């Protein structure tokens, strides 16, 4: 019954080996990204299987919805779409105007970034960090450092990619920081995560800075990671204590980080494709409505 003991490897030796290997891993963690990527690609089927119960719940909620509920939901969505497209018409006009002005000033014209909708997989992550797992990976062109937004604002960035899934670090993680500016007066600052889902912290804000409760913070585009102009958070609390070196400012992220379901992955540098797709769809619209063009 003791074949391994006969070979003479003691438990103490095994433990020492395990501890040494662990310490080695702890120290070289950052250099092991490629290995981690391949192992997590191998393990990702496990994540897909673990996601099944949640997906089934969603599916059953959808398929057992009554006709009445669906009709109501449809109505609400139609209303919303009408309101949105009205805003979009104004926005389109403003964008053209903005592009012309920018062209006049000789500054680069804003382009639409490529975006893809991804779904959050319901799998557990490290309880000490704020992560979500997405069902898009390297196969879909996801890359490390990619900005992720939802309907309300910035959610975070991709920190780990495997073949079929990717892991997003949320704004609220203590290790996350995002450069922002105040829309009211363009003051720049950096919003750090605090480890609390609905709180960001603005560090090193001078007490003389003009910042008020209710100010909207948008991504400033500095740091070349997040594209400029996406809403990030709203200032909730400003304390200017004479005893402190800096003002204590906290903000609340606009994205509902505790109940995100669908997210948008952005490719800030991929513009042509988005433009072409847009043109294609525009052509398609004109093709399909010849009466309108005549």
């Amino acid at each position, binding site marked *: *019954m003791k*074949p391994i003991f006969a070979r003479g490897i003691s438990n103490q030796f*095994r*433990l020492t080996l*395990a501890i040494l*290997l*662990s310490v080695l891993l*702890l120290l070289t963690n950052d250099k092991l990204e490629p290995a981690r990527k391949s192992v997590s690609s191998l393990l990702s089927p496990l994540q897909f299987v673990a996601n099944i119960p949640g997906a089934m719940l969603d599916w059953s909620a959808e398929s057992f919805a009554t006709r009445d509920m669906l009709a109501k939901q449809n109505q609400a969505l139609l209303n919303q779409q009408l309101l949105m497209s009205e805003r979009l018409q104004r926005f389109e006009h403003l964008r053209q105007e903005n592009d012309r002005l920018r062209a006049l000033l000789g500054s680069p014209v804003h382009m639409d970034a490529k975006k893809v909708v991804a779904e959050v997989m319901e799998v557990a992550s490290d309880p000490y960090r704020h992560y979500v*797992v997405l069902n898009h990976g390297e196969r879909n062109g996801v890359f490390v450092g990619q900005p992720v937004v939802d309907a309300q604002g910035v959610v975070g960035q991709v920190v780990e990619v495997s073949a079929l899934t990717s892991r997003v670090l949320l704004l609220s993680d203590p*290790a996350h920081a995002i450069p922002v500016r105040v829309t009211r007066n363009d003051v720049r600052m950096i919003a750090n995560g605090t480890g609390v889902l609905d709180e960001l912290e603005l560090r090193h804000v001078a007490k003389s800075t003009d910042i008020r409760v209710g100010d909207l913070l948008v991504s400033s585009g500095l740091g070349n990671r997040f594209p400029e102009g996406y809403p990030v958070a709203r200032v909730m609390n400003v304390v200017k204590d004479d005893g402190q070196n800096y003002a204590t400012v906290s903000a609340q992220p606009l994205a509902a980080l505790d109940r995100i379901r669908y997210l948008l992955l952005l490719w800030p540098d991929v513009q042509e494709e988005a433009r072409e797709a847009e043109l294609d769809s525009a052509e398609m619209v004109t093709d399909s409505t010849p009466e309108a063009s005549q």
Partner: protein
Amino acid sequence: MSMHIPNGRWVVWLSFLVAMLFQIMPLPDLVEGFRPDWLLLVTIYWAMALPHRYNILTAWILGLLLDILLGAHLGIRSLAMALVIYVVVLHFQRLRNFPMWQQSLMVACIVSLYHLIVFWVQFVVDSATFDASLFWPAISSLFIWWWVFWILRRVRRLYKVR
């Protein structure tokens, strides 16, 4: 001689795989904090039942896989698992002969130790704030252990795992 031939290795690894699946399965927010450490419980069982075959290095590998699966800093859970399973392997005779209630209490202690080690290493490498909810999984593991033990013993006897 036949005693020396390992049997049913795939059953054991399958049980590890299922435990890993349970470990990352989504749970309602209400019970999320009480998520039992399935993988650790299953590893404790096999380390207790077959300490010469599944022990510290097995636990180390499983801990590493768990780290990767959870997206944690590599090495945290592998270290914690290896240390905890070392304790189990040292005392497997005693643990085996404990009455069930005492055994599950010991398992709860081991789970608490595991979480303390995870917290401690996390605190050293990144940063972490101590929260008493750290020990909630120990409470749920206390009750889950009965079932894990019972099911795995049946599996072990059914497939004659050695």
